[in-house]
């Protein structure tokens, strides 16, 4: 049984780059991917800004090495690219991977018009009839990479892929798998854009998490995948980071908003510290969920204050770069956390912060070099699903 689980490969595509390296470059340069969306089919792109991956589906197919007539929805194409990169970096083939566990909320539903017709029994030739459900992408990724025997998809809304990482870690720790591919993917879709708009949660400008003037979310899209390997499986192979702590808790307050007491977020962070066996002073940076909504950011800050008490570490949210990538957010931001550890650099939001009475310590504004040993990454979702992960540098 492996008690320590390491990350040996990562893959990432988002509005700010097609690879982890490109994403990192944009982050350190302060280049945001938020802007007018060109590819998603929604009238609301006239009004709101998004973190859209700057490629057409045809271009994504090319990047994924697929023929132009390959019939996959955008979510799957994003997943293929990131999953392929992760496997390549880990130096593994699909036959060496025991399972794929991913988070997803949109799946092939990003083909909203086709779904709308198909669900009414209209055969429009989409050939996506059995791929609108959440579990389809994991199966497609497995086939794209070769073949992986175990498939699972978690949908805990915006914490989905953080939970996928956690499930992968626990699976290895229980001895049920040696190596797993974990991550998440979601594309922008008319469905989610209208969903968030119906709740009046979208912002017309680049989002500004934890700032007093914040006014909502920018939806984004992307995919992030990580190869997890147990201590015994990796031998002398280089590792990128260790997943040291994990915590899942429910806020159990309201379907779509977080509790004033911040019960769920507080408990998730405390559990992550407990499984890592460390005290709160040993975390140097928090990659916050920070969506840019009034409710999330206020609650999350309160939870951070409760957990870290007097010594609140540096914290920030990267959603002003990529937008909120929903089911992919947990894994994309865990990879950002890993890159920060690797480069000993914390990424500031690079937007102007204004005072907020409820947020007494503002997040990091400008990126800087700092000694980092551990980073915490948060992901919270509708339904009160809260998850925190702790990454530790290297394999010491």
């Amino acid at each position, binding site marked *: 049984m492996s008690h320590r689980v390491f990350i040996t490969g990562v893959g990432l595509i988002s509005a700010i780059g097609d690879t982890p390296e490109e994403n990192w470059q944009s982050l350190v340069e302060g280049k945001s991917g938020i802007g007018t969306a060109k590819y998603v089919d*929604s009238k609301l792109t006239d009004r709101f800004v998004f973190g859209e991956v700057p490629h057409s589906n045809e271009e994504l197919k090319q990047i994924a090495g697929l023929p132009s007539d390959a019939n996959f929805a955008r979510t799957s194409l994003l997943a293929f690219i990131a999953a392929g990169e992760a496997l390549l970096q880990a130096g593994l083939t699909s036959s060496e991977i025991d399972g794929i566990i991913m988070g997803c909320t949109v799946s092939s539903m990003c083909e909203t018009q086709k779904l709308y017709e198909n669900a009414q029994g209209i055969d429009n030739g989409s050939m996506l009839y059995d791929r609108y459900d959440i579990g389809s992408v994991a199966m497609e990724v497995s086939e794209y990479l070769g073949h992986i025997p175990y498939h699972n998809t978690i949908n805990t*809304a915006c914490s989905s892929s953080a939970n996928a990482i956690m499930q992968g870690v626990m699976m290895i720790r229980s*001895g049920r798998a040696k190596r797993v591919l974990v991550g998440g993917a979601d594309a922008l879709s008319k469905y989610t854009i209208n969903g968030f708009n*119906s709740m009046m949660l979208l912002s017309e400008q680049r989002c500004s998490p934890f700032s007093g003037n914040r006014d909502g979310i920018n939806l984004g899209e992307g995919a992030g995948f990580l190869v997890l390997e147990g201590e015994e499986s990796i031998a002398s192979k280089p590792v990128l980071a260790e997943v040291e702590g994990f915590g899942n*808790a*429910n806020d159990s307050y309201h379907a779509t908003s977080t509790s004033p007491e911040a019960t769920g977020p507080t408990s998730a962070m405390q559990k992550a510290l407990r499984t890592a066996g460390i005290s709160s002073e040993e975390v140097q940076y928090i990659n916050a969920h920070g969506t840019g909504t009034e409710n999330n950011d206020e609650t999350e800050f309160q939870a951070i204050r409760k957990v870290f008490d007097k010594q609140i570490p540096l914290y920030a949210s990267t959603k002003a770069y990529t937008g909120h990538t929903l089911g992919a957010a947990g894994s994309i931001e865990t990879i950002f956390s890993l890159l920060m550890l690797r480069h000993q650099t914390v990424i500031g939001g690079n937007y102007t912060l204004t005072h907020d009475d409820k947020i007494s310590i503002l997040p990091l504004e400008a990126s800087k070099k700092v000694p980092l040993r551990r980073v915490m990454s948060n992901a919270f979702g509708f339904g009160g699903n809260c998850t925190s992960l702790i990454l530790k540098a290297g394999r010491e």
Partner: protein
Amino acid sequence: MKYYLNHSSCISPQSSFEGKFPYEPFTNQTTHHILASEPDYKPFFPMNLLRRMGKISRMGLTTGLKVIEDSKTDFDAIISGSAYGSNEESFKFLDQIYKYDEGPMTPTNFTQSTTNVVSSQLGLMTKNYCYNSTNSQKAHSFENSLLEGMILLDNQQASHILVGAVDEISEYTFNLFGLLNWVRKDQVTPQEALNNPGTGFVPGEGSAFFHLSTQPESECSVEVAYLKTFAGIDQENVLKEIRQLEEPDLILTPRNGDLENDKAVNHLIAPFEDIPQIDFKQFFGDSPTVSAPATWLAQQLLNPAMTGFQGIQWERPLTSILVFNKFATGQSSLLLLKK
């Protein structure tokens, strides 16, 4: 470590929620699919809440709440599985998008359409702040949820887990099944389908939840001795695994009257052809998470008071049942329960 399923609850096309046993003829047969026999929900929800709840929530929450009530246990994890989630709510929201041409609309259908609605509402209704998760992997959604529970126990992250799966058959899922040529075109009951094989299955719906722990907690407890899922292209591995399993007393088999499916089932179950078999889909109709009600059925059959079922008699109480599932997605699973 050992894993036990203890108190359980099931809503299905049968009167399973009321514990009526053995089975009675269907009363909810519509033209091409078979609906759940829904219980009186009033003891579980206030009327104003009930009116706003989708069917998947009604079925999932009620079976979950019943297990919590019967087991008198403080659960420290809630896990549910669903292949399609709340398709009904998703489509209602989709319909609004097109009807109002992306104008202002009410968010209720959107917020109720998330797949995690059952697990999270169970948490909310019972003020449970613990581990909470939802798996959606087509016809492995129940099995993966059970496995997640077992992994949590392995990792000592929880000790009493509420785990189950639910799927509804909405008009929209039914339409998608139709485009896939998955549905029987003749108007038959699942039993008639089985006796007159053709193309497609009779869709059903339902929910089953269980109390999972590392100790037997009640007289109804059964051990989960083996659990494995197989992707579509790994079907020959089912045969290999079955060959290595110890012989169960009974097998619940996934024939559904679809010629191709039943032929594949016959092939895979060949090593155990001498063991009594009961085709469980004739009682529930077919759905990607029908393995949850099938597991509930297996647990009932392992009750020492049972002496027979559906024409099969046994002289001494059954000690092990293999639940074998296979769905139109190509996926299959094996779950061995022991008394």
